[in-house]
């Protein structure tokens, strides 16, 4: 039946007509995508143009006298460098705590069969779905009682915990794809569990570890709400929070400087994402859905 219909389709539809149809479909798809792409780029135009316009407002326009004055104005230790260093400390600290905890947890979960594995992984999965903004009120209460408010290390450990379920989930998946035979050979030679993990498993999954590290780092770098609630001293606040002060907290909004600062603050994650998306076969998000 299908064969017959297929033959019929071939005789009815002449190849030239089919090719013309395909070309039309391609043109339609291209134009639809062009419109969508423009809609997505449009909101970013203001950011780029205002950053080089010393007299910027919320209007998108070519600067009358384009200059890097806005960048120069924010390039000061207390406006830019201190917040960026804080962001770096928070994000790198969060990523390192995540990596250590996730690798340690993933090893037995990936290598040994146990009745404990399945319930733990499902609990972890439910943990990934907890809305972090919802637990900020109780976390604030907890931090007040434990006198951890305004503490960088405590904030790092909390931020690490919010991404830990995802990090464990991803790390275990990457570890599962390292073949067991290599380790078994090492065990035969008398190597211990920690030694094989360090010398065989981790080097083989370093690309996956890179993805987890970048994933966690980017989440922490972009996080506004958690440090906004938990860090009170200006000297400890990361760029995500300090940029908020350009936004009219001290009187009028400095539009151009806001845009310039936003760009400088965004560049590190844009670069990181590009490196990971280009350099590895893993996409950041589908590894979550897998």
């Amino acid at each position, binding site marked *: 039946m*299908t064969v017959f219909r*297929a033959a019929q*389709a071939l005789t009815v539809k002449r190849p030239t007509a089919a090719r013309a149809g395909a070309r039309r479909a*391609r043109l339609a*798809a291209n134009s639809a*995508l062009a419109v*969508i*792409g*423009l809609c*997505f*780029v449009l*909101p*970013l135009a*203001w*950011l780029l143009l205002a950053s080089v316009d010393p007299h910027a*407002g*919320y*209007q*998108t326009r070519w600067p009358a006298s384009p200059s890097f004055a806005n960048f120069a104005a924010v390039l000061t230790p207390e406006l830019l460098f201190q917040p960026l260093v804080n962001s770096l400390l928070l994000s790198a600290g969060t990523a390192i*705590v995540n990596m*250590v905890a*996730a690798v*340690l*947890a993933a*090893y*037995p979960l990936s290598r040994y069969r*146990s009745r404990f594995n399945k319930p*733990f992984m*499902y609990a972890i999965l*439910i*943990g990934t*779905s*907890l*809305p972090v*903004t*919802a*637990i*900020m*009120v*109780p976390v*604030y*209460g907890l931090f007040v009682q434990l006198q951890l408010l305004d503490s960088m290390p405590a904030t790092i*450990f909390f931020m690490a*915990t919010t991404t*830990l*379920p995802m990090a464990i989930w991803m790390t275990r998946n990457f570890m599962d794809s390292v073949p067991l035979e290599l380790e078994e050979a090492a065990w035969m030679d008398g190597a211990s*569990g920690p030694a094989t993990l360090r010398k065989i498993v981790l080097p083989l999954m370093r690309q996956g570890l890179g993805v987890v590290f970048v994933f966690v780092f980017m989440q922490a770098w*972009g996080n506004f*709400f958690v440090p906004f609630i938990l860090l009170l001293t200006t000297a400890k606040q990361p760029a995500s929070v300090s*940029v908020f002060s350009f*936004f009219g907290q001290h009187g009028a909004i400095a539009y151009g400087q*806001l845009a310039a600062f*936003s760009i400088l*603050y*965004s560049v590190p*994650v*844009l670069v990181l*994402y590009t490196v990971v998306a280009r350099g590895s076969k893993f996409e950041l*998000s589908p590894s979550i*859905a897998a």
Partner: protein
Amino acid sequence: MPDSTRRRAIKHRFLRLLPVVPSILLLALFFLAPVAWSFGASFTDAALTGKAALHPQWVGVDNYARMLGDAVFPLSAWLTVVFVGASAILGQNLLGLAIAVLMGKAGGTMNSFVGTAVVAAWVLPEIVAAFAAYAYFSQDGTLNQVLGMFGVHGANWLYALPMATIILANIWRGTAFSMLVYRAALSEVPRDVSEAALMDGARGWQRLAYITLPIIRGSIATNLMLITLQTLAVFTLIWVMTAGGPSNASTTLPVLAYQEAFKLGDIGYGTAIASVLILIGLVFGAAYVRLLRGEKQ
């Protein structure tokens, strides 16, 4: 089995699980404890300052009763449903699918342009995306400039239509996730399946509706679940764009919990709202786990 051997086996098994302990400690201290604390505090009159800050009193279900009697909470719950439904389930999901399908038909250059444009809004730090969206929708922002070209005099959208602006902003910000999920899913649909349908004379949209979508239904369900949870937790975008206003017209539950707890200092009521959100998250999480289990079997 002799007793000592058995004891050694148990000890051995325990030692093997030892590396999981740091993770369990972190999750217990910073996840389970706040959740438990949240449910506990939601039955008290705990406050940010004053007498109730030091010695919170047990008030039973007062906070929850107040929630139902309060005019703001039902409004806020409804706005949250609208926000999640319109921006995630309809907006991000359908637009992401449409882009992924169109990319299968379009040229390589166009694909990388659109891919970069869509992903850029997603990779930017949330607060920067929020500033850009604020500027875009403000009185003399880009949107009104574009409308002006067509002779339309636009309003101050952030005040006139606050929900519409935060919904559009969240679609702009989050569509990349759905697009990436659907691109990956579509690339795994076997080519001969859709080619056979083509031979059968099925039209494009028929092929999509009856053949492709049923094949990738697992990815659709996973995607819907994940973007729902992500959108449920959105705070920064709304806080920067409208701060929940004007007069609560865009106060979703996370914004309401923040306002009650930190602006008005009522930790008890704030945690009650947070507890409701946590419960919704847990229900979705459990549903998500069931979904994944069903898929494996």
